[in-house]
């Protein structure tokens, strides 16, 4: 299922003195099965975009096409439930939305709301708890007796339990320690591959964008200012810096090396291993001696 944004404009509080233009002429596509990272400075419009991806917001101009269904200003879409079932959003600090008596009930809440039977919802909760890295025994606990990191995992399981085709992640690892961060991102990536999900990741972490994303969309002041693969975009560090964004550590190191040595590596490297290999190639083929 593709999602297309076509010349989307969004004004908050349109027609009031508090009107504010949040998105302006935004067009891009999230093709089925791709991993797309959206990056941009605070206030660049990333969160507003997210809310368009499952019709929580309707554009004030232009349209959003979600798997063939059109959401636009002039069209009053009736059955949005179908869209929301297919596009699951993990909001920032999703653990703040936990509310049920037990972890199991909390995970079951979403799917049951979309008409899944109690049994089926329970099966899904049991299957997912392990997937998000928690022991079965937490199912019977109150979510409020868990640590912050565990609560985050429960909240994520709640979104996964709806079995969406598109998974939208808004800073899913904020506040987690390095191991937790890696575990959660690796889990999302494994699901993405295994189930052929489309994944949208909103992040401040250029490392995550470089490592996981197929495509990147850079937002600035409510518009898309750059688009391309991580390798393409990270080979334009000056342009990124002009939007208040940095490059991953590996790219930064590569820049420093190139500056000092006057040599140029064959391509921008996205991982430490790749960088070490490229450097050794450069050394062996006549950079040194």
């Amino acid at each position, binding site marked *: 299922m593709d999602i297309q944004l076509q010349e989307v404009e969004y004004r908050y509080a349109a027609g009031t003195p508090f009107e504010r233009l949040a998105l302006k002429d935004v067009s891009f596509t999230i093709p089925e099965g791709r991993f797309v990272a959206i990056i941009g400075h605070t206030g660049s419009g990333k969160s507003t975009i997210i809310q368009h991806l499952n019709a929580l917001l309707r554009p004030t101009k232009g349209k959003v096409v979600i798997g063939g269904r059109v959401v636009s200003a002039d069209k009053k879409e009736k059955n949005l439930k179908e869209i929301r079932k297919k596009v699951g959003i993990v909001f920032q600090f999703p653990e703040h939305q936990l509310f049920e008596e037990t972890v199991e009930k909390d995970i079951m809440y979403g799917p049951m709301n979309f008409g899944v039977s109690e049994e089926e919802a329970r099966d899904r909760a049991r299957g997912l708890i392990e997937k998000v890295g928690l022991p079965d025994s937490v199912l019977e606990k109150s979510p409020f007796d868990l640590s912050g990191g565990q609560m985050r995992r429960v909240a994520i399981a709640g979104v996964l339990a709806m079995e969406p085709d598109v998974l939208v992640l808004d800073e899913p690892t904020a506040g987690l320690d390095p191991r937790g961060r890696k575990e959660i991102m690796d889990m999302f990536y494994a699901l993405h591959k295994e189930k052929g999900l489309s994944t949208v990741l909103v992040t401040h972490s250029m490392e995550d964008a470089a490592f996981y994303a197929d495509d990147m969309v850079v937002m600035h002041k409510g518009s898309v200012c750059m688009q391309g693969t991580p390798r393409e975009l990270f080979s334009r560090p000056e342009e990124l810096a002009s939007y208040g964004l940095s490059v991953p550590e590996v790219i930064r190191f590569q820049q420093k090396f190139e500056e000092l040595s006057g040599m140029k590596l064959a391509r921008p490297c996205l991982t430490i291993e790749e960088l070490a290999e490229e450097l*050794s190639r450069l050394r062996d083929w006549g950079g040194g001696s």
Partner: protein
Amino acid sequence: MKEPIISIRHVYFRYPEQQSDALHDISLDVAQGEWLAIVGHNGSGKSTLAKMLNGLHYPREGEVMISGFPLKEEYVWEIRRRLGMVFQNPDNQFVGTTVQDDVAFGLENNGVPHDIMVRRVEESLQRVGMLDFLNQEPHHLSGGQKQRVAIAGVIALQPDIILLDEATSMLDPLGREEVLSTVRELKEEQKLTVISITHDLEEAARADRIIVLNQGSVYHEGTPDDIFQMNKELIQLGLDVPFPIKLGEALRRQGFDIQGGHLTEEELVRELWTSNFKK
């Protein structure tokens, strides 16, 4: 060592209805004017310790002295005046409708006379480089700017100690840099003691000393150099190794001549160049 500004002796703490201690026999000192980083994975006890230092929890056993006051209910307000906290989420700690109101809030609460207050608000905002934003509303600020305003609010009260509780974890890399260099300057200019609670090792690398917590106990203590030599052990503890050290290893595996662990990219790039290319 001079008289420590904070001393913690054999402290135990357990949350109600929990089976195990959140803090288990913790002893440590913080010297006046030092930058101490406390690192550990989620659940290692570091936030519990932060809350204790601000009098939000009291030890079940053991003793804590902060700026000359024992951590007891009757001294908690004295302690809070001397130890200011900056929290994780920039949006949860903005109470004023404008930048200057926000910085004035703590002063007002402490009954500081108006003329002194106006001066201190300006001085504090000047120090964090936010004076131009005096009348801005919070939602016009970036995350890094909001955290700098929060720091201004803390230093306006002229504390001895500033405690950063994961204060940069929600910021983008530029915002984080903004905040950390502000803290560094303040520490130097005002002889502030800085405690940063973090799992960001780039942040911890700027400290004079690092304490690693694991399962509520002090697991290891040393300079950033010492701690980062722990390498794989840090990863087992749920932490990470700073980028230059990881890259240094990968380069050695490719047969590059790289000595020791470098904590900065500049050191590493220079060694890579001089001992491997420039011959």
